[in-house]
């Protein structure tokens, strides 16, 4: 069923109004639908909030082709089918078949509406050949799902090319977190684990480090396939990296080293059961930095995130973790010196 109608390009209005208009035009006032459009690259992209609605309107040239599907029988996989890069990524993050059945009210939405599963971070400070990937283990039942091995890599040194021992990803477990993100691949060389260089460390050491950091693992790799690297100036193109933080102009430039955030994060989750009562998170003993307190508050949500999706009230907190960590970074020198001076008053 096709309808053709016009909109004021300069004043598109709100998404709700547009949605109402669609229902009106199609005479389906009580049917939930998914709205999509084709962008300039021919990709099918969703319209479900003001931002992507505005974006869609602004890209109309001059025609904007809109697709409407009944929500019950929506074919989620249609979205972004032709997207060249990160196809899997988008799908894996957004469309989790095991979850959408339980929770039919998924709306394709802003990245912060989702619990991150993985992200590429620090794009601006790393060489283009490297990729720093963060795997968020908490709350998922999915295993991390990868293996590492010893190997050797070739380095350029003043003496010429030199073979040095290195650690490589040897296998991805189908359905595991590592595979589903699409950010890691077999034969990627592991360079750092949560900011610590692995060179000179044995396979067992690196294994232990990764397991110790498994709840918030940040791996810097040199991808075996260098063709899929994030090209920096295409960051704002919009369609390719929506689910990665790196494409968010607001957060990327400020984050210097994201991994420190995770370090503080994963610790406060120890649980105490007093007198056989209810389990509680162990609070952090009072410390000087306020940011830490809010941080530990934020940890509270992790236990409740069993199914992967969070109630929206919590997601904001989660997103704020990023900014908190930045704040923490600023406090960092101070806080350190306090600890070093061994005058912690408790």
């Amino acid at each position, binding site marked *: 069923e096709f309808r053709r109608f016009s909109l004021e390009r300069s004043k598109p209005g709100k998404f709700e109004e547009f949605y109402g208009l669609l229902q009106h035009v199609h005479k389906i006032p009580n049917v939930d639908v998914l709205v999509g459009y084709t962008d300039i690259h021919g990709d099918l992209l969703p319209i479900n909030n003001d931002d992507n609605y505005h974006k869609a309107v602004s890209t109309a040239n001059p025609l904007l082709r809109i697709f409407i599907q009944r929500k019950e029988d929506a074919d989620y996989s249609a979205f972004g089918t032709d997207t060249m890069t990160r196809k899997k990524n988008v799908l894996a993050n957004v469309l989790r078949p095991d979850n959408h059945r339980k929770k039919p009210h998924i709306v394709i939405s802003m990245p912060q509406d989702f619990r991150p599963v993985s992200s590429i971070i620090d794009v601006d400070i790393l060489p283009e050949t490297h990729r720093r990937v963060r795997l968020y*283990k908490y709350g998922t039942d999915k*295993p*991390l*799902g*990868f*293996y*590492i*091995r*010893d190997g050797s890599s070739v380095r350029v040194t003043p003496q010429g090319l030199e073979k040095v021992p290195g650690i490589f990803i*040897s*296998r991805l477990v189908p359905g595991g977190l*590592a595979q589903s993100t699409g950010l890691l691949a077999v034969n990627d060389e592991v360079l750092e684990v*949560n*900011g*610590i260089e692995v060179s000179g*460390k*044995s*396979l*067992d*050491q*690196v*294994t*232990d*480090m*990764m*397991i*110790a*950091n*498994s*709840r918030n*693992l940040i791996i810097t790799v040199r991808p075996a396939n260098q063709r899929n690297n994030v090209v920096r100036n295409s960051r704002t193109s919009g369609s390719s990296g929506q689910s990665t933080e790196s494409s968010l102009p607001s957060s990327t430039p400020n984050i210097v*080293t994201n991994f420190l955030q995770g*370090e503080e994060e*994963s*610790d*406060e*989750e*120890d*649980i*105490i*059961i*007093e*007198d*056989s009562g209810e*389990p509680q998170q*162990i*609070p*952090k*003993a009072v410390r000087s930095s306020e940011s830490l307190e809010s941080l530990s508050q934020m940890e509270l949500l992790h236990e409740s995130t069993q199914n992967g999706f969070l109630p929206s009230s919590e997601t904001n907190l989660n997103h704020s973790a990023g900014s908190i960590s930045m704040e923490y970074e600023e406090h960092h020198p101070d806080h*350190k010196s306090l*600890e*070093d001076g*061994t005058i*912690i008053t*408790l």
Partner: protein
Amino acid sequence: MRRFLRPGHDPVRERLKRDLFQFNKTVEHGFPHQPSALGYSPFLRLMAIGTRSGAIKLYGAPGVEFMGLHEENNTVMQIHFIPDQCQLVTLLDDNSLHLWSLKQHSGASELQEERRFTLKGPPGSPPSATQVTAVLPHSSRELLYLGTESGSVFVVELPSLRPLEERAVAAEAVLQRVPEDYCNRRSCELVEALREHPKNPNQILIGYSRGLIVLWDLQNSQVTHHFLGSQQLENLYWQRDGSKFISCHYDGSYTQWPVSNDNRQPEPLENVVPYGPFPCKAISKIYWQTTKNGLPYIIFQGGMPRASYGDRHSISVIHGSQQTAFDFTSRVIDFFIIFSSEPTAEFDDPSAMVVLAEEELVVIDLKSAGWPAVHPPYLASLHCSAITCSHHVSNIPLKLWERIISAGSKQNIHYSTMPWPIDGGTNLAPDPPQRDLLLTGHEDGTVRFWDASGVCLHLLYKLSTVRVFLTDADPNDNMNTLGEDEWPPLRKVGTFDPYSDDPRLGIQKIYLCKYSGYLAVAGTAGQVLVMELNDEDAEHVVDHAEADLLQDQEGYRWKGHEKLKTRDGPVRFEAGFQPFVLVQCQPPAVVTSLALHSEWKLVAFGTSHGFGLFDHQQKRLVFVKCTLHPSDQLALEGPLSRVKSLKKSLRQSFRRIRRSRVSSRKRRGAGGNTSEASPDCSAQRSRSASLSWGRGRGDVSDLQNVSFPLKVQEANAKFDQDALQEMELAPVQRKIEARSAEDSFTGFVRTLYFADTFLRDSSRHCPSLWAGTNGGTVYAFCLRVPPAERRMDEPVRAEQAKEIQLMHRAPVVGILVLDGRSTPLPEPLEVAHDLSKSPDMQGSHQLLVVSEEQLKVFTLPKVSSKLKLKLTALEGCRVRKVTVANFGSCKTSDYSENDLAVLTNLGDIQIISLPFLKLQIRYPCIRKEDVSGIASCVFTKYGQGFYLISPSEFERFSLSTKWLVEPQCIVDVPELTSNNHVNNRSGVENAARKS
């Protein structure tokens, strides 16, 4: 990056650290692994032992020890002291000769390698031409005679090790005057023995392997006598007066030959096959010792009847009608006799026989009737039965010390009272500052108490737990009870006995309270024994209690070993530690943790299923707590013990093979090659229960990823298949996965700790029991112990107060409570004995939880996290052992502090401050491949430690500047030297004049 930000630039603290901490490996205790050569200097009264890894160790009077290491790490084949010198020559299996000297340096002697030399033949000669088979340091101290495989004898000058070609004895020269028919029958073959004439230094006896023996005159460079032996020669020995010598042979015979100027080609005086008439094994070494009463001592190695006793490692001593064949527990490497070495003495008068067997040193007193063994003050065979655990107790009160010694002396009555005969050198080390005990648990169910105060690790007392149980071994099965008329007259000597009657007897955990004399010992089959020190023999019934650790679990079936059967009725115990109560864990899994509180009279124990608390005063079980995850089928069924023991034995045999191929000790600098490292790696891999499939075969803990309970066999099959596939694809890979509550063996209780602290509220403190598991859980129980006057009337009560789940779920390896002054709580009874300040009960207490991955401080009573130190996340190392140690300053006697000593799986030792958990210093200590070394490490309370460098040796190390136990000794050249020298000189001149 973090480390860069770390502190450590406070100059005051840095200076203090230098005054507090210092790392030294100070001394090796125990018996050298794989000894290969023995030497003795009657002049210095020092004994030297060489090993297959190229180490050379000198021992004299107790405390006098020297150690050297050949860079080549090759097997030491022979050791010869230079007569009347502080020098010795070693021959390695690469045919190199090394000259070592004891040099005095700032008041103490040191063993140094001076020179090395490899004999080179004429160009084009085969390597066998210069392969050294016999070494004779000449009494002139200037020459070294080297017999070779080619039959030539080469001469090198000492101490330069310069060859003197013109002096060499060529085989052709020797054969010149040998009768034609004899000569045709046999050529010279290799030189088996070189012996200098005891009275005439110008004559040496050369024995060739085919049986020919010649007396060679050094002055005239010619053969003076031919002795045409008909049997393959093994060795030679001169009689003291030089009128006769004795040769021993491959066929188990020995022959006496007269030496006189009348007959240049004498017939043998006597040819004896001591254990004939049936074919006998070779006699490889023989002594003929004269005595005042005219009856000689004939002492020889081997010669046993081939068919029935060919497997024995024997040395026979014959003195008149007395004859004993000492039967050793392992291969005899070499032996020597200590006899009167005074040149003026008319007779040998042997006093002792020193035998180096492969696994132990045995010294026989030849003067006392019955030839009893002498108890060696050092070189103890730690591995008589394999060591399964160790426990160190510092600063033993004198009273307890004396009682232990007295109990031990009653066990040692069969030893000779002879003073230790090897008594060269002087021990300069100050008396040890305190009495320390090292307790080792063994596979055969014994606990050995070692005096670890000083350089000599000395056995004080041996405790056996076997008597409590019924075992298959018949106590009357005694090898020594041989009838009078048994032939050969074998007598077992030595203590090495690696065969355990029942592996379930193995000791796994030991806890000794030095104030009360209470001892708790726990073993492989879930047995926990509480003992008390009794100075008298006693016969009593051991109370028996069962602790069912699986109370809440239904429908399990334990598939591991059964519990040990106990003896009914009263059991007779010898003086010493006597068990009075046995707590049997059910299922009888290996006891993994143990704690004893002698003041509260409580003992806590844990296994892979849970833990329990027992009141040994009232002999009542207070409570048990099951820690097992219901789905943890593997731990439930208990294949761990079986598979582990199989795995362990495989690993050990691997290790044995490896050791025999490449000696593994002393490779510290060399950085072993990959083939050696691999068995260790696989062992190391198995340590972590959280890593799976890809980690190598045979590791059952890997099965934890199977979320549904599989039959073990199926899983094994699947695992094998998987592992095979893995091996084809990628031989070594590691799975990266977070730990989860469903992992296997999370309930495994790793640590137990008693503390009097604020568990519930900050106003009242109470006794508490803390337990940490493999899955990162800490349980805290509040205990109510009745006051002393009502101790027997009211029961001890316990109530769970807290449970802490560490989110990283790493195994908890240590729990500690710090008092209001941040000082660790004292040991039980320590305050009562005025040996410690009372803990500060005013300020707030803190809880330190050490997991394999991080150290974390929590506040008490409200548990909130306060501080932490991450090790694994930042460095990739995991905590293996942790202890609180007190470090005193070497500069001022009034400053000391408590720190944590942490050993990681990489073999590093880190010292971490309390209570702020700041890394102070890090020392590499053990090779990371040396998994058994790391597992065996035990720290003392004063910053020292021990770890096994081989099954039979502890390396002692010190982290403290103040407490350092190391050999410090001097070897003075006895006055006698110059006289002796002159005597010898004149001897040579006389001889020269005569000829």
